[in-house]
């Protein structure tokens, strides 16, 4: 299907751009490790293990925000987005491709961040990792979408966190629940529900974000 061919071509472009720029991924890695160190100093002596699990999710959300702010920068420069919008492909392919690329980078950052977390604090359960995977999908889908919206405004970088955080609250709930509660199935299912609902909404409405 040509739709997936388009997504593939665009995703390849996004991955290539990020690999060439080589700034977002190192920044995210440094940021997340620094955040963990800050957490160590933020947790008073007798804080539970649960508290640090919760803080992991804070770190993930804010590290993702850092990366998401950069998502549409190449398109914003010199209005390259116009060129993509004019192409005959479905506009939602632009969003899907960018989300996939962002997911790849967030995943790469977490491949380092999660072991570091385990090193600094305590081990990670399988449920936590599953939660991270599901949450990443939601974060990238919604975050990329909102990034495109933010780029169209005057406030830009200022606006993305404001738009993203209320929508990230359910993700945090799902993630922390999966990490902390005895039977994480409910929370993982909730994360999957979030991904499906908001993924569909993003897919259906991206067209209107980039056209008049």
């Amino acid at each position, binding site marked *: 299907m040509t739709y997936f061919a388009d997504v593939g071509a665009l995703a390849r*472009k996004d991955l290539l751009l990020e690999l060439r720029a080589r700034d977002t991924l190192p920044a995210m890695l440094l940021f997340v490790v620094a955040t963990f160190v800050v957490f160590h100093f933020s947790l008073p002596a007798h804080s539970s293990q649960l508290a640090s699990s919760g803080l992991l999710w804070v770190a993930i959300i804010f590290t993702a925000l850092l990366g998401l702010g950069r998502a549409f920068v190449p398109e914003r420069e010199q*209005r390259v987005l116009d060129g993509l919008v004019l192409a005959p492909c479905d506009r939602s392919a632009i969003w899907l491709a960018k989300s996939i690329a962002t997911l790849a980078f967030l995943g790469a950052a977490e491949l380092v961040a999660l072991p570091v977390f385990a090193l600094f604090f305590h081990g990670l359960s399988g449920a936590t990792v599953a939660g991270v995977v599901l949450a990443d999908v939601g974060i990238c889908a919604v975050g990329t979408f909102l990034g495109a919206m933010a780029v169209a405004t005057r406030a830009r970088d200022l606006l993305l966190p404001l738009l993203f955080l209320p929508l990230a609250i359910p993700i945090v709930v799902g993630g922390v629940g999966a990490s902390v509660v005895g039977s994480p199935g409910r929370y993982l299912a909730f994360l999957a529900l979030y991904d499906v609902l908001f993924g569909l909404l993003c897919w259906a409405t991206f067209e209107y974000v980039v056209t008049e």
Partner: protein
Amino acid sequence: MIRARKVGKRFGDKRVLRGVDLDVARGAFAVVTGPNGSGKTTLLRLCAGLALPSEGELEVEVPRAAVGYLAHEPLVYRELTALENLDLYGRLYRVTERRERIGMLLERFGLWDVRHDRVVSYSRGMTQRLALCRVLLHEPELLVLDEPYTALDEAGADLLDAQLTELHGERTVLVSTHDPDRVAPLATQQLALA
């Protein structure tokens, strides 16, 4: 091909176009002139389909895939090479015999030797030539060119002249320019914006 009746465009409180009428038939070569700020770029963006008019009616008979738009900005990724940029657009526009066509265009516009260099290393004139390649890549039926001679040196301008002459009559062309004399021999109609 293009039909505009009393088209106007407003950005917030600023009115950029007002009461524009335009009729471009298939195969015509229309030239739009006017001083800076007269709305040439806006009119071309409307015709390319990137914006909707605030008032009036605008009808463009060809689908998106058949339009080639050259903007003020080259619309290419600076961190990708010429080849990568054209390959991306070639895939998105479903260009048949993509590699051959890209190669042919790059050679014609004198960019073959630098095809593996990133666009960020190009001069402004070279970037403009690449933009022209991008526009012509999918053999559009309607060409909308916003000041295409910008930044081109004499050689580049000659290449563009030759290309436009070749397309004359076969494709529909809508050009905006500061220098109407250059395209005067090809023009079949003119529109002057106040």
